[in-house]
């Protein structure tokens, strides 16, 4: 998952502290050294790490912590607090202008993912009822304008361009005029990637800024950036003045330390994160939730939101009953699968579960394509078989494998998985009972 190594190491380190009834200054120092290494390995900038460690150490060796009854817990809380504030506290949204159009300008290094991100952002805004216009100001990279057009077409969002022979400042200005004329209430300006030390090209951005006065200048940063992230962010911020950051490529097994560095050196919030190659893979960034995820505390809030957005309420009620009565069968399983697909990749969902830690996730190779096979297998069963999987013996398995174009092994595997799922569901429903006091929530998870 994202922040892979970091999460695992921090969780291990803090786990060691957790149980301790008494903490010495040395315990704290040792733990802090491990935290430091974990952060450095995750590519957080060296100077940022130094400051961070200093802060936590100072707070942790204070009297109230060391003499408290649960010093380990206290330290964990401090790390969580500081990590959250390092990432920017609470969520920051895009501020829309009182008088449209809201002008958003994207800037960043070459290959950071500006064009794709511009498309993703426009797509999201469109979903909330805005009428965005994309403006193609990258006149340098071959086919960059074409790329934006293709992206715009895919999302059915208009793209304004004037070819690559016109000055980007003029394109930006004309783009805004176009938006005003055609009633686009958000303008997203895609600019060419550039090095922060390229004086001419930085000047160009400043000129665009002066001419069109963007409401939001977003620095687009590749989450995989190493130590240099601070130089880049600092220079863009001091030269241009940025309002927010969008982190891209925060998927796969990105370490993502840059997230912490850029926020720390600029003081500017991370507003969105790109989490995949599809044009819908852009999410608002919640520092607090991300911090708890890194520390293995789960991100139940995001999970519930995702579920609520993609599950059918009436079906959920039925399902809840079934789980309680323990007559959840393959028919329901199939139904769940189909709804699950709306929620996004399985691995992402599991990441948000409290108590599912990194190591477990790693062992669980999850392939979304497998879902398609599973669907095919269940669809090849008779209704009777789906309701009562125990009747599926060897000959039936063979038939099902043939019907679904899979193998008997695949059918076996599915049936086994289903059994495990049933068990897991029982656990979850027990857990839910336990949590009733602190507010009800359902986990519609197969």
């Amino acid at each position, binding site marked *: 998952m994202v922040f892979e190594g970091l999460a695992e190491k921090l969780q291990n380190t803090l786990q060691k502290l957790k149980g301790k009834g008494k903490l010495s200054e040395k315990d704290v120092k040792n733990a802090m050294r491990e935290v430091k*290494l974990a952060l*450095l*390995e*995750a*590519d957080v900038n*060296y100077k940022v790490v130094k400051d961070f460690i200093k802060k936590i150490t100072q707070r942790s060796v204070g009297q109230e912590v060391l003499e408290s009854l649960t010093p380990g817990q206290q330290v964990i809380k401090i790390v969580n607090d500081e990590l959250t504030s390092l990432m920017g506290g609470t969520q920051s949204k895009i501020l829309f202008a009182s008088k449209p159009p809201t002008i958003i300008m994207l800037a960043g*290094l*070459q*290959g*950071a*993912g500006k*064009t*794709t991100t511009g498309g993703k952002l426009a797509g999201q805004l469109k979903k909330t009822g805005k009428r965005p216009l994309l403006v193609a100001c990258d006149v*340098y*990279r*071959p*086919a*960059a304008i*074409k*790329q934006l*057009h*293709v*992206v715009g077409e*895919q999302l059915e969002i208009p793209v304004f361009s004037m070819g690559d022979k016109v000055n980007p400042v003029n394109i930006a200005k004309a783009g805004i005029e176009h938006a005003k004329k055609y009633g686009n209430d958000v303008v997203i300006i895609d600019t060419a990637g550039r*090095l*922060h*030390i390229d004086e001419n090209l930085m000047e160009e951005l400043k000129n665009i800024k002066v001419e069109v006065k963007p409401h939001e200048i977003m620095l687009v940063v*590749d989450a*995989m*950036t*190493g*130590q*240099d*992230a601070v*130089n*880049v962010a600092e220079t863009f911020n001091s030269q241009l003045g940025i309002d927010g950051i969008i982190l891209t*490529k925060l*998927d*796969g*097994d*990105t*370490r993502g*330390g*840059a997230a912490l560095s850029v926020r720390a050196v600029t003081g500017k919030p991370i507003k969105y994160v790109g989490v*995949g*190659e599809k044009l819908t*893979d852009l999410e608002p960034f919640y520092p607090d939730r991300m911090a708890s995820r890194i520390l293995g505390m789960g991100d139940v809030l995001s999970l519930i939101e995702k579920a609520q957005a993609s599950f059918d309420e009436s079906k959920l009620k039925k399902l809840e009953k079934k789980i309680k009565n323990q007559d959840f069968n393959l028919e329901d399983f199939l139904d769940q699968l189909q709804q699950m697909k709306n929620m996004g990749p399985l691995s992402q969902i599991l990441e948000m579960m409290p108590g599912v830690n990194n190591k477990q996730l790693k062992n669980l190779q999850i*392939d*979304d*394509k497998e879902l398609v096979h599973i669907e095919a297998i269940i669809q090849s069963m008779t209704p009777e078989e789906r309701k009562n999987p125990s009747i599926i013996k060897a000959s039936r398995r063979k038939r099902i494998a043939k019907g679904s174009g899979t193998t008997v092994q695949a059918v076996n595997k599915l049936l086994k998985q289903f059994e495990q799922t049933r068990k897991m569901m029982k656990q979850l429903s027990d857990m839910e009972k336990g949590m009733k006091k602190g507010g009800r929530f359902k986990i519609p998870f197969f």
Partner: protein
Amino acid sequence: MLKKFFKKLKKDEENMNEVEQSQETNSDSIEESSNLKKEEKCITTQILDSSDKSPSFFNKLKSGLLKTRQGITEKIDSLLKSYGKVDEELLEELEEILIMSDVGMDTTLKIIERLRTEISSRKITDTSEVKSVLKEILKELLQTSKSNDLDISTPPSIILVIGVNGVGKTTSIGKLAHNLRSKGKKVLLAAGDTFRAAAIDQLKIWGDRVGVNVIHHQEGSDPAAIIFDAIQAAKARKIDVLICDTAGRLHNKKNLMNELSKVFKIVDREFSEAKKEVLLVLDATTGQNAIRQAQTFKEVADITGIILTKLDGTAKGGVILGITSELDIPVKLIGIGEGMEDLQPFEPNEFVEALLSEN
């Protein structure tokens, strides 16, 4: 600073090319043209070859380096000067420099450990000696069991370029095509990135720019089919070097694997006579994730070399030390800008100098 440094090197190399060229034209009149052709070919394949350089190249390079040296090693020099003696504190400062250059915790600790051992066994007390020992260690880490040169000496050859999104695959292909073509090679490009919007157009524009044909299908089509077609075209047209672009999909390892292994199968089956280079492109700005990228791609591909791009920025690309030493993949080329001339052979010496320099 780094940019200036690499640009400077580039200038020197260009000058050197000019010098060689003029020498060549002088001899033109004396030698027979058939002989000349042969010789020309010889020289051309060696330009990207660091092993076999004419003395003039080295001299130029050295004098170029000398001029920049003062600036670039300032950081470590002033550090070493400020320390009267060789002690733990000094090692810690060196550790910091390495980490700030993206060398990574693991490799840095290994380097410092080695340095500590060398210092005590060689009884080093002079801080200035520490620097040369450190450089030795770093250079050793860059040394792999393989050559740092592209092996495209006997045609035909095929170069597959792989790497994640945005690292500079397509751009590097454009530059490499230009480089090879200007040396008289017949080059063909294959637009194997059918995933990213307008990636095919991007490669086509590069093809036009450097005067090289591009085999392509439509967006969304099967990359393996394009590579197949390109191989047939390369054979029919008696191409010297076929360079294939690919999509950089990191999101889904399975997709990436499937797509690439299919491509490799086609290459092995259809073009077994060709020399094969598989070049992984890494962005110098990337931190420790680059190791993961290299590992992941190594699982599907026999990577023969690395192109390290974007060294014209302020990033040092130190992560490469861990990759060359752990995975035994040599760096073959570096990217130092977006123009078609901005590709150079990898020089461990310069790289190490730059790594220890101030921005």
